[in-house]
């Protein structure tokens, strides 16, 4: 008779592991406290209870968070998608072009032209997503290399379509989606929140999500269990690209212009958000909740440092340090988990 239970003394260990799992949220709270104390001491004003600041941080997080949502699935499956930044740029340029063309050349009203523009941005992102998935699933190209190649291709394509410049759109509906508010909540934030809920459901409550974890932990076990791992991999990269497409379309709406370099600095942020959120780059673990916390940590660092008047370049240093710390915590967590991981 055997009882599966952790042996005595593991109580403390599992508390530690809980803390490690929640590290992104704890860190977020810590950051808020630090900036709040600083703001009160230096300016005698509140930082976090200021609606303008909250709105700015939320809007600031939209694009990196959208990229990170798709990236979460890919990283859990033990892959990586390096092409998201320029897929976003490509989508941004195509969305702006499509909206402008629909309005000017086809003479459509602003509303259908806006919908056409946003739709075109998301749909064009399917192309890099499908190519990534095909390379990785069927041709067995390592994700790092396949998506790095797509990084270059999407980048070039975006600049070519944009003609090397930004693509302006004058469409009031477009601007409303990008900058409007409902009950003081920016529309782009509402759209992102809906995407977060959808992705959380997909990851935690569906077979698709469950299979993503299984593929990341043990690809062969997933294959033997009858999961179509190739098809699943295709869908993962398609999902990641779709998120990037939405981010690009919303970018164009926000600035009433498409830009090929829209997502250029966001690749690192998207991976950082996922890793800070508790996902392992070795695959098999991660949550959407963690990724959301990770994205807010990054946005808060970037916005907060500006707020307290630190030279902006320190943002890169700070985000980099946080990524490294997160990976260190992840590794020690794996050791705590019983040393079963291959070191």
């Amino acid at each position: 008779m055997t009882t599966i239970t952790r042996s005595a003394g593991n109580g403390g260990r599992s508390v530690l592991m809980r803390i490690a799992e929640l590290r992104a949220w704890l860190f977020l709270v810590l950051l808020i406290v630090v900036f709040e104390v600083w703001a009160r001491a230096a300016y005698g004003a509140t930082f976090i209870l200021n609606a303008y600041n909250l709105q700015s941080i939320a809007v600031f997080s939209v694009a990196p968070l959208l990229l990170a949502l798709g990236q979460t699935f890919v990283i859990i499956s033990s892959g990586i998608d390096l092409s998201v930044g320029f897929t976003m740029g490509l989508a941004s340029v195509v969305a702006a072009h499509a909206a402008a063309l629909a309005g000017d050349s086809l003479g459509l009203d602003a509303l259908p032209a806006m919908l056409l523009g946003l739709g075109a941005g998301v749909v064009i992102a399917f192309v890099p997503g499908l190519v990534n998935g095909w390379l990785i699933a069927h041709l067995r190209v390592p994700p790092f290399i396949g998506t790095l190649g797509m990084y270059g291709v999407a980048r070039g394509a975006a600049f070519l379509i944009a003609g090397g410049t930004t693509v302006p759109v004058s469409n009031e509906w477009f601007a409303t989606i990008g900058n409007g508010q409902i009950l003081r909540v920016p529309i782009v934030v509402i759209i992102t929140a809906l995407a977060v809920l959808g992705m959380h459901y997909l990851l935690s409550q569906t077979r698709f999500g469950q299979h993503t974890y299984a593929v990341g932990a043990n690809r062969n076990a997933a294959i033997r269990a009858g999961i179509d791992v190739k098809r699943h991999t295709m869908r993962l990269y398609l999902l990641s690209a779709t998120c990037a497409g939405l981010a690009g379309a919303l970018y164009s709406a926000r600035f009433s212009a498409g830009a090929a370099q829209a997502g250029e600095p966001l690749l690192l942020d998207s991976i950082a958000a996922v890793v800070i959120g508790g996902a392992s780059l070795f695959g098999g673990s991660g949550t959407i909740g963690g990724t959301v916390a990770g994205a807010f940590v990054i946005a808060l660092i970037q916005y907060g440092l500006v707020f307290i008047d630190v030279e902006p370049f320190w943002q890169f240093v700070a985000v980099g340090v946080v990524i490294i710390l997160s990976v260190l915590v992840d590794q020690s967590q794996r050791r705590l988990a019983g040393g079963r991981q291959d070191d």
Partner: protein
Amino acid sequence: MTETAPLLSVRNISKRFGGVHALEGVSMELHAGEVVALAGDNGAGKSTLIKAISGVHRCDEGEILFDGGRVDFATPHDARACGIETIYQDLALADNLSVGANIFLGREPKARLFGFLPVLDRRGMAAAAKETMALLDFHVERLEAPVSTFSGGQRQAVAIGRAIHWNAKVLIMDEPTAALGVPEQRKVLALIRSLKAQGRGVIFISHNLADIFAVADRIVVLRRGIKTGERRPGETTSDEIVKLMVGG
């Protein structure tokens, strides 16, 4: 026990890989509630034999009968659908998932949240896991814990649990006690005995003669693709088995 019709009957099967005769006219039988050990040195054909039974390889000659009827499995999935499950040494578990999630991997049940939203039926999976593992005398308390936190023997039990949950009639186990500590080896042998008590047939490959003598009803010895003997543990000795394995 041998009076009843065998559950699985392998008749004169041969398998060649290029010029290499991996199996030459090997026959064996397995009855319900029986444990057959496959013994043999490296390259004796043990793995080829279990792969032929489990649908990985198709034999060049001979036939396999399961439950009285002739079968010809094209893939391991066909064999599994008939109730022949193979548990390889690596166990094929998703370490980050719970016992229930592993048992149901690829066939997860669904429930409805608020009457319309389809969600994974985690409660159902956990309950089934508890029930199945209790059949193996493993009482799982931490149902949500990932299987990576379990010991080697417990993980073996999870792999076996997955097979029996899907009604495997024959379990083929490749070196189930290798890479385990002695107490864990004993647990796995106890698992094999409980499978036998449930009326399932077990074929297991082992290098460990002590394990073979401890649980097997019959020992089939292979050497260079040929069956050199079949003995009952009570009627033979380790020395004789070793001689059959290495020749001379």
